[in-house]
């Protein structure tokens, strides 16, 4: 083989067969760069087509107005018309401004409350499942049930539970109007959302927990660490990368909440109106321009939150990748 000839005498001795890659760092870096390009391109291509293009097209849409309108002289104008930032200024002014800030508040409120509750409940669930030996299969199957139910169906289910003469009121012996427009409906949405999605976090954290070597716990126990200490000093740090990804995805998902409040309470209800619902309502009324404007504002809001999250908490997600890379390089140099 050609590469065998290229081997320098000081290289680590190894069988010649299959040794296609040069030991020299430069050649390796080049080939891994080419390999990376090949491996990444399908993903990037698909994402550019199904996510990149629509968002750009949507932004363009937000600068246009369509449908029948009266122009300055009172004539009816049909079709698309460039309106610049009019769609955006309209969002923030008057009645629609109130509706926007209400939806903005609801979106933020739902995200903060549901994700906080989900994280705590999810981690507890994962710890319980990890502790349990008999019955783990059963509990894992049951934990997957709420999450396996499609959001639209779970919305219907909770609407059924929260009926005025439904089972929730029967259990509480109260007459709460859950699905009316008020604070109760906010609570109903939070309960339904947390029920449905905390298993998602539980499942991911469990997968992370199972990656932790048992010996680490043994060693800690020998060194006299109590259960709480083991949780804070071992479990949490080691599970953190998995947990951070789970929480980040939940946050991004909660920020664009739509199906659940729409099915459970209804569209156009002040108490549960989210930004996506507002945008959907506009699109449903064929006001694509302002729908796209709402969507773009939501997009920017989500981008800011995600950026802050990665910057403040997830910094070591990417830092980990760098560290692994550095270790590799030093190891390679040591071998060369």
């Amino acid at each position, binding site marked *: 083989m050609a590469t065998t000839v290229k081997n320098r005498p000081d290289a680590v001795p190894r069988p010649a067969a299959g040794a296609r890659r040069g030991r020299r760092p430069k050649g390796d870096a080049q080939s891994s760069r080419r390999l990376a390009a090949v491996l*990444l391109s399908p993903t990037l291509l*698909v994402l550019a087509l199904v996510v990149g293009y629509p968002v750009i097209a949507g932004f363009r849409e937000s600068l246009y107005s369509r449908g029948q309108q009266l122009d300055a002289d009172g004539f009816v104008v049909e079709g698309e018309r460039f309106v610049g930032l009019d769609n955006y200024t309209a969002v923030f002014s008057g009645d629609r401004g109130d509706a926007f800030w209400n939806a903005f508040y609801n979106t933020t409120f739902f995200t903060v409350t549901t994700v906080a509750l989900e994280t705590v409940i999810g981690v507890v669930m994962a710890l319980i499942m990890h502790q349990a030996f008999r019955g783990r299969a059963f509990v894992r199957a049951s934990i997957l049930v709420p999450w396996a139910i499609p959001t639209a*169906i779970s919305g219907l*289910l909770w609407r*059924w539970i929260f009926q005025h003469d439904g089972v929730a009121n029967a259990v509480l012996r109260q007459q709460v109007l859950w699905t009316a427009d008020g604070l109760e409906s906010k609570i109903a949405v939070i309960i339904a959302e947390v029920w449905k999605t905390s298993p998602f976090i539980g499942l991911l954290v469990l997968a992370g927990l199972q990656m932790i070597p048992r010996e680490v716990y043994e060693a800690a126990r020998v060194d006299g660490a109590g259960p709480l200490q083991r949780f804070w000093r071992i479990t949490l740090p080691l599970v953190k*990368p998995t947990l951070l990804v789970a929480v980040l995805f939940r946050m991004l998902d909660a920020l664009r909440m739509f199906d659940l409040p729409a099915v459970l309470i209804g569209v156009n209800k002040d108490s549960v109106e989210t930004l996506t619902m507002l945008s959907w309502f506009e699109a449903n009324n064929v006001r694509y321009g302002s729908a796209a404007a709402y969507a773009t504002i*939501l997009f920017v809001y989500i981008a800011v939150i995600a950026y802050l999250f990665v910057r403040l908490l997830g910094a070591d997600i990417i830092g980990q990748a760098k560290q692994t890379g550095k270790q590799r390089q030093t190891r390679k140099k040591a071998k060369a």
Partner: protein
Amino acid sequence: MTAVRAPRAAARPAKPWPARLRGALPYAGIALVALYCLAPFYWMVISAFRRPQDQFDNTPVPVRWSVENFTAVFGGNNDFGRALLNSLIVAGTTTVLTLVIGVFTAYALARLNFPFKNAVLGIIIATTMFPGISQLIPLLKLFTDIGWINTYQAMILPSLGFALPLTVWMLTTFFRQLPFELEQAAMVDGCTRGQAFRKIIVPLAAPGVFTTAIITFIAAWNEFVIALSVVNEQQMQTATVAISKFTGISGHDQPFGTQMAAGVIVTVPLVIVVLIFQRRIVAGLAAGGVK
């Protein structure tokens, strides 16, 4: 795993009372978790089996069991069997495609060094945060132009948009936690990078890959807004869309009984999928060298 556990269990009887309590605690925990997860689901099942005229009873078990709600699901002009098949095709294809594409990308992100790696990571995570609503309208327009309305690809392609980044991120996290030394050792022993990937990384990563498969499949199966928008023929509707369009036979304001029955039917394939993959996960963990 039980073999590893055994010595510790044998050591316990030394402290009888707290040990027994500690032994019972996990079961209490399990019971609590199962109750939390299953109680609403139980209510869905029970409501599905009530007779339509008893629908508003709040007894924990139906006074009179009935499958009337289930026959209503498949009866009339609902064509729910076809809807289930559509869901299976769309969700299955999405899962296979994202896994095939995602495994390679995640491997590159977790293992290889290349310029703009952080930029690529950034792009992939950025795509997850794009609100679906802003993706929908332009794609709908595109699909109308190229005649893709009422096709499977019109549902599958947009689903890749939310499934792929999720898959890549989860796989990357899993791959990073794998012992890279083993791969390096295999390469020192004469494996090519491809061989090292196939023979060392893939078996070790299997639990993570299967967890990812479950998550992707369920996310695709539960997809609602895209399928609702790019399809207007009943023949091509997925199950979730079909249920949302149920109209009550009895003419009540909302056909809760029929919808609960349909919900039960929709979750059964998922429970089967979960059970199949779950065994693989447990086997993979028991045999895996990740410990």
